[in-house]
């Protein structure tokens, strides 16, 4: 486990963005590739006088296509890694946001269940409404005032689950440290 759980704390679930987000990225990549193939083909024809192709040009075209597919494949896995590493861990006491901003830039933020004051759901656009995913914004009394959980499946159900955990957390006794100024 990447996070240190407190005594009595256990993981309830890990949430990732909806798969539609990944499919959308894959489609974007596919169309970018198709566009790139067209551009490369056009350039190759335009500069055909400049290119001295020693062998069969058919193999050269296939080579370029294979290189493009290879790069697109690696790019898709870069998207997948970003998708997989951008997730939320819900424990009985906290919600932890693991955010991979870049491959070498991670951001981990936490909101405690007992700090949650309000949860707002947003489903924006046709796909989010039809497929059933959306974003949650949690108003918190902690250091992070607004905590976002974006593009997750079934935000309504998740909201209910978080509220239940919030209620349980509120019933638990808290350790309060009062510092003595003297």
């Amino acid at each position, binding site marked *: 486990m990447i996070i240190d759980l407190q005594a009595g704390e256990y993981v309830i679930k890990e949430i990732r963005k909806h798969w539609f987000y990944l499919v959308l990225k894959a489609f974007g990549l596919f169309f970018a590739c198709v566009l790139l193939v067209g551009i490369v083909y056009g350039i190759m024809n335009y500069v055909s006088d*400049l290119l001295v192709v020693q062998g069969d040009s058919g193999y050269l075209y296939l080579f370029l296509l294979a290189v493009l597919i290879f790069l697109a494949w690696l790019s898709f896995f870069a998207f997948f890694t970003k998708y997989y590493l951008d997730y939320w861990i819900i424990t009985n006491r906290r919600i932890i946001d693991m955010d991979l901003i870049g491959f070498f830039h991670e951001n981990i933020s936490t909101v405690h269940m007992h700090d949650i004051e309000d949860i707002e759901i947003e489903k924006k656009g046709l796909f989010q409404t039809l497929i059933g995913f959306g974003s949650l914004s949690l108003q918190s009394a902690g250091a992070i005032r607004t905590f976002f959980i974006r593009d997750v499946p079934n935000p309504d159900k998740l909201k209910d689950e978080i509220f239940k955990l919030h209620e349980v957390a509120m019933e638990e006794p808290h350790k309060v440290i009062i510092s003595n100024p003297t």
Partner: protein
Amino acid sequence: MIFPFGLDLAFTVSPLLLWIVFAVLCIFYGVMSMIFMYHWNKHGHGKILFVRSVYFVVTISLLALIAILILLYSQSI
């Protein structure tokens, strides 16, 4: 094609050039795989074995295909 001022920009696509591109792709693949593996091991907890297998099998197949195409191109000279 000879450009103005006698500038000749003709570019020869030799098999050596394609092998250099292949070598660059292999290095790029190695670096990216190391980064992916680091993150998948750190966050994956062994859950994405299927994804890893697909990634490595397809990527190595694509590299093999590229190498075969370079060989075919070399032999067609």
